[in-house]
């Protein structure tokens, strides 16, 4: 056993830089570069602030999705869940406003977090206890949440009480030392997510469950529990996104959050997380959310594309960005 010392030395060797891991950031740099070249308004402070602030919703939800996906599942219900949680929060705040005043916002936010967690729990239990393919299970709950918000709003909309608008406004429009508040919240969520995923037992087990659930089970990891918790985290992230969202639009409608699930999954996958599970890239996810938002922004800023073709150009750019970071290695 002479080689022990050398091996121990190797254990401390620094992590190698991998081009593949840098992919999403390179792709982001690429679309930003395109933006700078294409349009002079792109690089203005206000525009950048707007884009980054807006990407908060998708980024926050996508952090949760990174957990769900890396644990080997998928959640299609996030967009509808977002609408449902938003609806519940607004109703709660409106109800409590007369007695609590502006504090109703806190109460409502708390209720939102609880409801989000419960929605996630429901998804998780259906998938794990019910042993139903996550795609189908969450497609089902997607319909359920969407129907609930439609029913709650009678097909119309649920606006927040006027009295709460002003005190609530800063949560989206305010800033801390010049950094927009939603960006601060996103950063906190991402840091917490990164910590949980990379630095805790839970994160480790989440990846193991996604990488090979059999092995995880044989190693004493309760795959069902890990996955259920991932869905709960997803629910909490949706609720946090909803808290930031309400002051921006001030209402919940049956179309709130529609198709966000696709954007969220796209952000996660562009970010380098494997859709089949086992590998998670939280920071990549954030880059993915930014890429999507920058592309949408460029579509508005530039005048080259017929309005009918915007979706096509967006599709092409996403594919090109993926190709670019595939062949950059």
């Amino acid at each position, binding site marked *: 056993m002479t080689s022990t010392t050398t091996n121990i030395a190797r254990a401390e060797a620094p992590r190698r830089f991998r081009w593949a891991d840098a992919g999403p950031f390179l792709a982001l740099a690429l679309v930003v570069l395109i933006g700078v070249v294409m*349009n002079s*308004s*792109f690089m*203005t402070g*206000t*525009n950048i602030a*707007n884009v980054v602030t*807006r990407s908060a919703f998708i980024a926050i939800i996508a952090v949760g999705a990174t957990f769900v996906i890396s644990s080997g599942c998928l959640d299609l219900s996030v967009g509808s869940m977002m609408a449902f949680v938003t609806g519940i929060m607004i109703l709660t705040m409106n109800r409590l406003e007369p007695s609590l005043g502006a504090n109703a916002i806190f109460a409502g936010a708390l209720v939102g977090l609880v409801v989000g967690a419960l929605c996630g729990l429901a998804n998780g239990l259906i998938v794990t206890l019910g042993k139903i393919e996550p795609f189908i299970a969450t497609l089902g709950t997607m319909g359920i949440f969407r129907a609930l918000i*439609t029913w709650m*709003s*009678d*097909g*119309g*909309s649920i*606006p927040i009480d006027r009295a709460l*608008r002003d005190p609530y406004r800063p949560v989206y429009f305010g800033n801390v030392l010049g950094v927009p508040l939603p960006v601060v919240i996103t950063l906190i969520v991402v840091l917490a997510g990164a910590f949980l995923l990379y630095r805790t037992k839970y994160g480790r087990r989440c990846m193991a469950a996604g990488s090979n659930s059999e092995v995880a089970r044989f190693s004493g990891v309760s795959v069902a529990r890990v996955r259920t918790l991932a869905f709960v985290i997803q629910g909490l992230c949706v609720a946090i996104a909803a808290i930031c969202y309400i002051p*921006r*639009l*001030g*209402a919940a*409608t*049956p*179309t*709130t*959050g*529609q*198709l966000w699930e696709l954007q969220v999954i796209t952000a996660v996958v562009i970010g380098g997380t494997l859709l089949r599970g086992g590998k998670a890239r939280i920071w990549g996810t954030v880059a993915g959310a930014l890429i999507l938002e920058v592309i*949408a*922004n460029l579509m*508005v*800023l530039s*005048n080259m594309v017929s*309005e*009918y073709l*915007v979706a096509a150009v967006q599709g092409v750019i996403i594919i090109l960005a993926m190709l670019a970071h595939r062949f950059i290695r």
Partner: protein
Amino acid sequence: AQDKKIIAVSIPAATHGWTGGVVYHAEQAEKEIEAAFPNIDVIVKTSPSAEAQVSALEDLSAAQKLDALVILPFTSEELTGPVQTVKEGGTFIAVVDRGLTDPAIQDLYVAGDNIAVGANTAKWLAEKLGNEGKIVVLRGIPTVIDDERIQGFTDVIKGTNIEILDIQYANWNQDEAFTLMQDYLAKYPQIDAVWANDDDMLLGVLEAVKQSGRTEIKYALGGNGMKDVIEMVMAGDPVTPISTPYPPSMIKSAIYMTAAQFSGQAPMRGSFKLDAPLITPENAEQFYFPDSPF
């Protein structure tokens, strides 16, 4: 280019027939106005959701100073705040179709009247059916427009002996309307009339009725004044003798009215309500635009 006046136009993306018409008329207006007035730049932007529309407003006003904004809001509540923010930058605001919750923001308001669309159809139908009968209704995507039309319609029907057998969503989609109507026909042996709150859906309904061979259905009505349906009205179709206009061209009118002030005329302000008179074989000609996609 610096001294050009900029008119931004923010409208929903062309996801179904009527919004497709809106996009078409907005782009027509852009071409015509830019050709006629070299000092005006019209920027048309579509958005697929309220969220995206708010983003588009942010982007447009961050990129340049907007002299005017013509907007067809997705929903009233959600867009009121963002439009107000734009106005605070000194922009002339023209709102089309759905009014904002704070009307003070609107310099110009070209209003559609969705409640009237429903109500006028209902009145006509009630009269033709002699206040009796059984009808089924197809509604669109759960949004404010849909809600208002249904509300206008049902409020009138409540005052009659007409029974609404069923109301279901068909998402302003021809295909889903076809399916839904097939099922209505299977479910109800006697249907006197059908109302689809949009002409797109009406086409699907008619196809299903035709297939079933059922003859007791006296009327199948829509709304919006889609050109195919107006052709039917002009031809004196017995089942679809009327429609209600809800012309997507209202966006064009609003853009023109807004542009006027930059071509030397005084700014137009105030509220212009588009009525929803019935389109009948007699007046159909004036609602017929063969070149419009809608």
